[in-house]
């Protein structure tokens, strides 16, 4: 049977078919939908959101040490958070199969950097598989568990945006059962104290050697011989673009790129007159091919910044053939189109916080989530972003550096649980005079509304303890903790004013649920009374997409407005109100 599936759905399916019984992860584009789909198999496969990627990785590792087939999911930067357990699980190895699914985001569609996860595989000396579409994602997932168990090694399955979010046909199979074998006590195997760790270190090298041989023989790497003028080595999605743009070329498709199958590469190279390596992000394979003494083209022709596309490979091809390399131009009618960047939704509670913060001349250290959008005009109320949890610790560092301005750290609820808590301990213990604002919208909004430790619900759909951010902050040693309702601008301004003036650190929790997550409105749509509006532009400075303006004359799109009531608080002339009929109805 065949189904049309996204790469992420196919990965979840592959895990289920492989007999996985444990899955953990933290949401992050483009990996999020893997667990969201995995949970449909919850009768056979336990699935959870962990507070962060390190915890997800460790939990899945624990399950594998107890003999279960397990996997964890994250985006590329999530693996930085989980790098610590990764590097040592590579030594300890696994009992049940263990796969870390990591989705890279070339082109940074929804990320703060570009990273090539394959480097981590080489760093940790473990295998990495690179599917090229959803069909392969399912198949490779199953094979990854086989490799993991046969060689007692963690395996990385590397996806990318165009594998995870592209849909294609997937052949389905039944589930194989692999019940957990149970934990078998064996300290020299599972405990890397130096004496045993040194032995593991030697084993890692021996395993790498075995893995190389296995990769040589594996059908995950295959040669599609055609003419011998041009041979292309391609990995992941780049393979699809190569097939499209160089249909006549011989191709070595590396589905299992590390450890590199040297003999396969040498043999392929010897059969073609010219060799080209096409891969997304780093010149991972190319560098190795060169180190084997094999001349090839790669980064000299194929860009390593941003994602590849058939369009970009056309340009590569033209260059190879000495033709003009002009990129396709926009049509003339499309020049000077207004941009349409992502914005905070109508009625987003973060808008209230940014509007209030706009009244203060402070430095704002921000973090990662929908509220990152507050850096953009017209809000302009965020000054730095580093990484998950960085909003808290960076604020601490700025304040401690002797900065003259007051410092506010901003962090979301899910991000607070992810890695804001440790930063807050630094703030409390080492006494920085910062205000940390936790913008709590009761969900992990940006990745599509997942639960987190504060929501009281698990991925499996069960009720659970809802951890309180306020209590957590007090436990961390913060004495001044208060909660505000961000739609009340004056009250929010007042809270910031008091906390910025008070000596020592404070935490302000801004709490209101994300209206998009609950598909809710906060009130009736409002309208601008034209006779009262003096076109001062105050309501336009909150960046609500429901307020449209032509020549500074605002009007509210009643289909988009959710009646949050922020814009009327901006208007000095009382020009924004319920429309008349509504008002009359409200009075009677």
């Amino acid at each position, binding site marked *: 049977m065949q189904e*049309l599936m*996204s790469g992420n759905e196919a990965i979840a399916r592959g895990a289920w078919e492989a007999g996985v019984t444990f899955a953990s992860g933290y949401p992050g*584009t*483009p990996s*999020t*939908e893997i667990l969201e789909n995995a949970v449909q198999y919850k009768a056979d496969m336990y699935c959870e959101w962990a507070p962060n990627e390190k915890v997800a990785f460790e939990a899945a590792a624990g399950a594998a040490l107890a003999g279960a087939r397990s996997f964890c999911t994250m985006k590329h930067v999530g693996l930085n958070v989980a790098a610590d357990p990764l590097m040592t699980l590579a030594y300890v190895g696994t009992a049940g199969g263990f796969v870390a699914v990591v989705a890279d985001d070339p082109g940074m*569609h*929804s990320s703060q950097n570009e990273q090539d996860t394959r480097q981590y595989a080489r760093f940790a000396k473990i295998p990495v598989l690179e599917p090229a*579409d959803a069909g392969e994602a399912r198949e490779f997932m199953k094979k990854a568990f086989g490799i993991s168990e046969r060689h007692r090694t963690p395996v990385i399955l590397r996806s990318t945006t*165009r594998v995870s*979010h*592209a*849909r*294609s*046909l997937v052949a389905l199979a039944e589930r194989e059962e692999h019940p957990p074998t149970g934990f078998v006590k064996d300290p020299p195997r599972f405990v890397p104290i130096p004496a045993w760790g040194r032995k593991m270190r030697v084993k890692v090298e021996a395993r790498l050697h075995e893995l190389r041989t296995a990769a040589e023989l594996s059908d995950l790497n295959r040669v599609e011989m055609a003419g011998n003028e041009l041979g292309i080595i391609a990995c992941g999605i780049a393979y*699809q*673009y190569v*097939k*499209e743009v160089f249909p006549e070329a011989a191709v070595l498709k590396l589905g299992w790129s590390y450890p590199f199958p040297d003999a396969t590469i040498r043999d392929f190279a010897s059969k073609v007159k010219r060799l080209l390596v096409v891969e997304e992000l780093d010149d991972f394979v190319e560098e190795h091919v060169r180190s084997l003494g094999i001349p090839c083209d790669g980064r000299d022709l194929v860009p390593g910044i941003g994602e590849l*596309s*058939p*369009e970009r490979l*056309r340009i590569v091809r033209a260059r190879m053939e000495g033709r003009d390399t002009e990129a*396709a*131009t926009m*049509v*003339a*009618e*499309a020049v*000077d*189109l*207004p*941009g*349409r*960047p*992502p*914005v*905070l*939704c109508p009625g987003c509670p973060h808008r209230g916080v940014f509007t209030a913060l706009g009244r203060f001349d402070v430095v704002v250290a921000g973090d990662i989530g*929908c509220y990152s*959008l507050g850096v953009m*005009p*017209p809000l302009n109320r965020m000054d730095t972003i580093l990484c998950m949890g960085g909003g808290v610790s960076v604020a601490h560092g700025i304040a401690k550096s002797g900065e003259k301005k007051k410092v506010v750290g901003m962090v979301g609820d899910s991000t607070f649980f992810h890695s804001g808590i440790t930063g807050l301990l630094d703030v409390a213990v080492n006494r920085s005079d910062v205000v940390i604002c936790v913008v709590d919208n009761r969900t992990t909004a*940006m*990745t*599509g509304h997942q639960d987190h430790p504060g929501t009281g619900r698990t991925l499996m759909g069960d009720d659970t303890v809802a951890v309180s951010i306020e209590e957590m902050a007090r436990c961390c040693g913060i004495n001044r903790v208060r909660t505000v309702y961000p739609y009340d601008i004056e009250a929010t301004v007042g809270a910031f004013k008091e906390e910025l003036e008070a000596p020592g650190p404070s935490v302000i929790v801004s709490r209101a649920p994300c209206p998009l997550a609950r598909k809710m409105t906060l009130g009736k749509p409002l309208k601008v009374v034209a006779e009262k509006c003096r076109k001062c*532009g105050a309501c*336009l*400075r909150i*960046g*609500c*997409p429901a*307020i*449209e*303006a*032509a020549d*500074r004359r*605002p009007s509210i*799109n009643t*289909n988009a407005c959710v009646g949050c009531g922020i814009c009327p608080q901006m208007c000095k002339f009382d020009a924004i109100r319920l429309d008349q009929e509504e008002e009359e109805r409200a009075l009677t």
Partner: protein
Amino acid sequence: MSETSSVILAGVGGQGILLASNILSRAALLAGHDVKTNEVHGMAQRGGSVVAEIRYGEKVHSPLIEPFAACALGSLEQIEALRYAHVLAPGALAVVSRMRLVPTTVSSGAAKYPDDIGERLARAFPNLRHIDAAAAAEKAGNPRANNLVVLGALSMGLDFPEALWEKAIAECVKAKFVDMNVVAFSLGRRLAS
């Protein structure tokens, strides 16, 4: 050179591009084709400009469409149609909803929504159906069914029988919404014929 057909759908996050893409790819599948699609998820969806690419044929490799290679473009908003105009093959069918969604860059005064959008569309797309999809959606009983109306109009230029489209819709939406969506879709077809 290739037998693969490519369709691009454009719009604004939240307008229902994903559903339209699902239905179209389902129709291609029911017609016996190999299918690949590419869709946008994550941050860009927060009211940003979004596209979906659908490719079908005997054997499809890339989910991404090359410039000037799409055989049809459907857009749920006017400036979004122009933004992706360079993906459409010259002279190919473009269905554009008369919907005008003002981006915040315009409201804040940083940019201007083109006054001459109608003329621009007519110049950019010689084979244009500039339709009042919102009115048709209203008529079908759901102002948000703009996406199905545009898809219906677009279907006039694609090679699948109407019954197959209806089957595709039925497989992609909840049972209680099938009728409304089919009505919106056929109103779209009528607008384009």
